[in-house]
């Protein structure tokens, strides 16, 4: 079953709006690194979403106390609907499902809530904060704002969760009387996450991220949201999704990536691979898959410019793949075996490859119909 991409929304450290962000990527811009400080004076680099990127967030009561992740998601979700020219009312909302992808979720409030418990005891815990710590709080806010009263799911996982969400959307469209499904991936950054990824030896101490660089020097966290509105047909299509597999050890990730590539490239080779390479072990895992399955493809690694947004990242890659097909242009933001640069011919198919940091691998293929 193929799915049409009817609309997209993008909130990133390079700003919001699909065309705005895409043009910045085409111009070779890279997110400006800021820094975030932990309570013991530790400093971590971070690609944060600028305040103006969420200026269009509606003044809705649900967003009054919500965390940044909810605002990112709402702005991206509304933008995807607007991009598709869809206005939801009771009737159309009843035929629309929401699937939300997240990895770390509302970490800012979760940390704050637990910090109060650790520092001041249970009696200090805020009943206002706790509900916002729940993984599905952002999806709940978005559903309430859009008036979606039917199917709404929040999926959690590593960087591959966005592809799993798109797969779930495909399965929902196969089972339900739905006209469309809004898939949103969102994440917010915090020093606690930076600390965790540093202790996991995945974080780089300063920019840049160098996808496919040797040796891998680490990633930098970012935040934001990506939204894709799926319909049954559109000019841009997701014509195959590989829900993927899991790897046990980082050293085994390459075999899992190759499995996904072979599934996605069985019928047609892709002209472009939008990779998840982020300056970690993922790069080497993808290098092998690309070399074996799509040796002639150009490679785009958007994390070099946008950072690693984990739960939002595979939606970002999907948007980048769709934009490459839509505009027939590819940003030169990374190099892979000297293959960077605009493709020589028309881009007919783009493969999105996702290897997560914590054992999940998946992918999909976007094509012009």
């Amino acid at each position, binding site marked *: 079953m193929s799915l049409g991409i009817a609309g997209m929304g993008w909130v990133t450290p390079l700003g919001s709006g699909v065309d705005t962000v895409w043009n910045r990527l085409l111009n070779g811009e890279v997110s400006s690194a800021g820094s975030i400080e932990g309570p013991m004076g530790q400093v971590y680099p971070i690609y944060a979403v600028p305040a103006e990127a969420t200026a269009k967030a509606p003044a809705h009561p649900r967003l009054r106390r919500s965390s940044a992740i909810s605002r990112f998601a709402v702005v991206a979700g509304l933008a995807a609907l607007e991009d598709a020219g869809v206005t939801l009312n009771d009737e159309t909302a009843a035929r629309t499902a929401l699937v939300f992808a997240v990895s770390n979720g509302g970490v800012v409030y979760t940390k704050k809530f637990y910090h109060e418990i650790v520092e001041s005891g249970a009696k200090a*815990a805020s009943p206002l904060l706790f509900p916002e710590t729940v993984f599905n709080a952002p999806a*709940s806010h978005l559903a309430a704002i859009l008036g979606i009263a039917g199917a709404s*799911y929040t999926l959690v996982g590593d960087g591959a969760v966005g592809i799993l969400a798109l797969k779930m959307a495909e399965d929902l469209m196969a089972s339900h009387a739905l006209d469309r499904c809004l898939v949103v991936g969102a994440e917010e950054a915090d020093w606690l996450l930076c600390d965790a990824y540093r*202790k996991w030896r995945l974080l780089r101490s300063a920019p840049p991220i160098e996808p496919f660089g040797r040796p891998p020097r680490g990633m930098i966290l970012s935040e934001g949201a990506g939204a894709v509105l799926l319909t049954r047909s559109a000019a841009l299509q997701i014509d195959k999704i590989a829900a*993927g597999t*899991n790897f046990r050890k980082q050293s085994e990730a390459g075999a899992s990536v190759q499995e996904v590539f072979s599934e996605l490239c069985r019928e047609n080779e892709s002209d472009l691979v939008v990779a998840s390479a982020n300056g970690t072990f993922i790069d080497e895992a993808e290098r092998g898959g690309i070399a074996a399955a799509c040796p002639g493809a150009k490679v785009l690694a958007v994390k070099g410019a946008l950072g690693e947004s984990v739960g939002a990242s595979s939606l970002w890659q999907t948007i980048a793949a769709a934009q490459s097909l839509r505009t027939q242009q590819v940003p030169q933001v990374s190099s892979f075996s000297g293959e960077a640069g605009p493709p020589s011919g028309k881009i007919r198919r783009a493969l999105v490859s996702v290897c997560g940091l914590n054992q999940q691998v998946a992918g999909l293929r976007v094509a012009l119909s």
Partner: protein
Amino acid sequence: MPEISPSTDRLNPARVAIVAAGIVSPLGFGLHETLGSLRESRDCVTPVTRFAVDHTRCKTAGQVSDERLARAGEPQLRSERLHRVARMMILALEEALEQAPGFQPQLSVVGTTSGGMTFGEEYYRGLKGGRISRRRAASLIANYTPQKPVMDAQETFGLTAPCQVIANACASGTNAIGHAFECIRSGHYQRVLAGGYDALSELVFVGFDSLQASTPERCRPFDRERTGLVLGEGAAILLLENLESARARGVTILAEVLGYGISTDNHHLTQPNPSGSGARQAMEGALHSGGIKPQEIDYVNAHGTATPFNDAAEGKAIAELFDGVPVSSTKGMMGHSLGAAGAIEAVISLLALQNQFLPPNINFRHGDADLNLNIIANESQAGSLRTVLSNSFGFGGTNASVIIRAVDS
């Protein structure tokens, strides 16, 4: 990619069999112990021992014995990196696979609310106190994430299916079973692993306490004097398969998943619409999906958290939709296991069907005059059951209902 079965026609959907089940909860380890606890109406809620509860109103929970978790299983189960809830998942999956050897899921759909949250807590406390080694920190981070217990369980038995981990708050487990059901029903999948898990954590325990949703007293679902929930923990797994395929393989079919309904109640982040409309929409959706009438339901395993708001809304919806159907919430016996609850209660519903009894709603003293419900008060009862419905509702307005039916031999 999933195999495409012959029956992808929406007008002629595939039937979905439950071919195996496994469970670990405060009621016991495995189906046999769980059944015994249910029949004997055992109260398995005990004082919390996992963390300090000096400053919380609520001081009890349904807890899975660490000693038994440690004793059960192979050396790999005792690995330090494994979260205790991963051990629960492994034991539940082991029990299920013993009933369906060679079951290879094409997809795993599992619900949770907080994954390995206690690892996150340990990490944060260690960070604040400067008492955590880098190696331990890395292990906590890698194993804290919600997909890890599912993958640990799959890995233990050589399964590699992609894992969709649903975090729809307390409806997650039922959502997982429901989505798995729909995947097979559409004809796009033959075999799907479904389930749910959650473990007690200080953060979540204090969170419910801060909302005054948990009770310092006993948990009394649907009682006039109900004062709130107690939390629980556990894991449960159902192995679902295309019924025709299961029959062709000669597999024992335990029951059939007949219908599934989902709704989103946009009334409030933590409170249901008092009209019960969200709950009703989910139950009606499940009936519609199963193509059956309300009078065909022989028993409702209610969400029944014993909070004033939930039970009022759910009770109203049940009373409006069903005429005198037997209802019980089993959360009084074992606590509310959040993301695991839907899966655990689906297994309880399965046991009720297989053994023809009505699970009890313990700690029940006084009926609520506002709720016209036929509560199975305090003791389990013999029943004649063919079709049962199980509800789960959660924060964020997520509502899910699933219908399970006995299969004629």
